[in-house]
């Protein structure tokens, strides 16, 4: 029996961790702004649960149980760290506040949104915002996050610690911003979620389970924000965008494991359920009458998905959407995609002309999609030599083996077709 109880206790703890980790961290850290201390206390509480629950059974409200233990640990830890008159007052205040709040348990208030705004505060380095959110909201350890973001665990650990120290020492508030600042600050939250998702999605092989999970976690965070801010069209737009992308995950590889670009994917390999959910969300967002980057990008996906019914994407709509996107961002990625759409609506030469405008952009010198797009369009206009050079450049810049193989094959086809 004890082994069975162990199993039940472990599963219950894991279920609570999954569901409530971010909620508990957000609540415990909101007053002190000390995220690291809240995480430590919570991890002690989870450890205590694994000892206690097999013996006394899983409590009625596991969340409330963990909260009570973590609260005690937090106060103990603060007491050990601080001494002196001021500290005693501070501790009493903290204990009172936590006590009063605990009276509301089992309804631990959901302050995750406030925590997300703290993690993506403009005073926090942009590159660490997504990892920080994955750690504080979802409880990922530094090593797991590091492997997803392709940096060493030690580096990631240090950067996460530095960010948490900044939150505490600089007095970054745990608060959902006022309406006047909400849109701008929400952008940073959405950007971090999208960064987490993109890290997971950019593994075209789909072989790295951890990175794949990251895409799912990105969607989970997107659902959370969209549910907590149901009137923000961009939050809903981002969720729609991620679901559209996720729907095509499997179609990026054929049966032999080779890379398949969007234009050559079989629409039957796309996930219809995810697409339908994405379309419904996009419709809801657009009814709110405030357009933005994520809604536009989701709409682009939607115009690609039209292929399921009509056999071809709605390139005219895609061009218009990229036009709109280029007015709100100066992203060269948007400009490249716009040029590809122009090639479909007005011919390869026009697309190439749109791409040529970007040639002096220093950001593109090392950007594989620019060279691959250029190579493809040059090939279509019959400029074999220039296309060959552009493919060579694209191949040299690509790190994914399957995509490289795909580009090499395109290059070989080019030479095979040309008489020289």
């Amino acid at each position, binding site marked *: 029996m004890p082994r069975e109880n162990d199993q039940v206790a472990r599963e219950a703890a894991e279920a609570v961790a999954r569901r409530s980790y971010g909620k508990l961290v957000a609540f415990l850290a909101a007053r002190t702004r000390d995220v690291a201390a809240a995480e430590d206390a919570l991890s002690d509480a989870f450890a205590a649960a694994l000892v206690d629950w097999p013996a006394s059974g899983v409590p009625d409200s596991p969340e409330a149980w963990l909260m009570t233990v973590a609260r005690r640990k937090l106060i103990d830890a603060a007491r050990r760290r601080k001494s002196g008159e*001021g500290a005693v007052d501070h501790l009493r205040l903290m204990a009172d506040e936590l006590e009063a709040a605990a009276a509301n348990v089992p309804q631990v208030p959901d302050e995750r949104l406030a925590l997300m705004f703290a993690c993506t*505060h403009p*005073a926090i380095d942009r590159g660490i915002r997504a990892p920080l959110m994955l750690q504080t909201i979802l409880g990922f350890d530094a090593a797991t996050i590091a492997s997803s973001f392709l940096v060493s665990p030690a580096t990631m650990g240090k950067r996460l610690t530095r960010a948490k120290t900044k939150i505490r020492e*600089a*007095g*970054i*508030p745990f*608060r959902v*911003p006022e309406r006047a600042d909400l849109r701008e600050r929400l952008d940073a939250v959405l950007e971090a979620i999208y960064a987490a998702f993109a890290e997971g999605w950019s593994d075209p092989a789909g072989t790295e389970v951890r990175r794949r999970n990251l895409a799912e976690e990105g969607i989970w965070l997107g659902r959370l924000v969209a549910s907590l801010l149901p009137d923000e069209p961009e939050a809903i737009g981002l969720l729609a965008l991620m679901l559209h992308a996720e729907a095509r995950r499997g179609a990026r590889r054929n049966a032999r494991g080779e890379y398949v670009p969007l234009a050559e994917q079989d629409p039957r390999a796309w996930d219809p359920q995810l697409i339908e959910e994405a379309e419904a969300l996009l419709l809801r967002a657009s009814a709110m009458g405030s357009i933005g980057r994520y809604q536009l990008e989701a709409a682009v996906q939607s115009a690609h998905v039209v292929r399921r019914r009509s056999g071809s994407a709605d390139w005219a709509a895609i061009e218009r959407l990229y036009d709109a996107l280029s007015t709100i961002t100066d992203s060269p990625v948007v400009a490249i995609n716009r040029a590809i759409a122009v090639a479909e609506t007005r011919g390869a030469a026009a697309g190439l002309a749109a791409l040529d405008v970007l040639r002096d952009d220093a950001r593109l010198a090392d950007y594989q999609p620019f060279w691959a797009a250029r190579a493809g369009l040059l090939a279509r206009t019959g400029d074999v030599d220039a296309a060959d050079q552009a493919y060579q450049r694209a191949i040299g810049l690509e790190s994914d083996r399957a995509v490289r193989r795909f580009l090499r094959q395109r290059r070989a086809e080019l030479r095979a077709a040309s008489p020289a």
Partner: protein
Amino acid sequence: MKYMLLIYADEAKVLNDKTREQRVSPAYAAYMEAMQKAGVIVGGDRLQPTASATTVRARNGKPQVLDGPYAETKEQLGGFFIIDVPDLDAAISWAARCPTASDGTIEVRPVWTV
């Protein structure tokens, strides 16, 4: 929390701009009045130009004295305020209202509390 707002500006430009004093003084007066009304100001002052600065360090108990400011930079520390506000967002919004924020740089630093 207490924050120090460190006000940096291009000193040469400030000293050469004869009309700046007239332009900026009323803005600073209004700014300080707003801080007083809000009850956030703890202290603050304008500093004399860096030509008047002396840099001191003690090595092996022996003071080393150097002429000039600690760091030669494009913008120099020209003044400071210490304010007491609830959090960084409040400190940032006061920093953004500082007249020098429009042509200089304001660094916001939490004051160490024991």
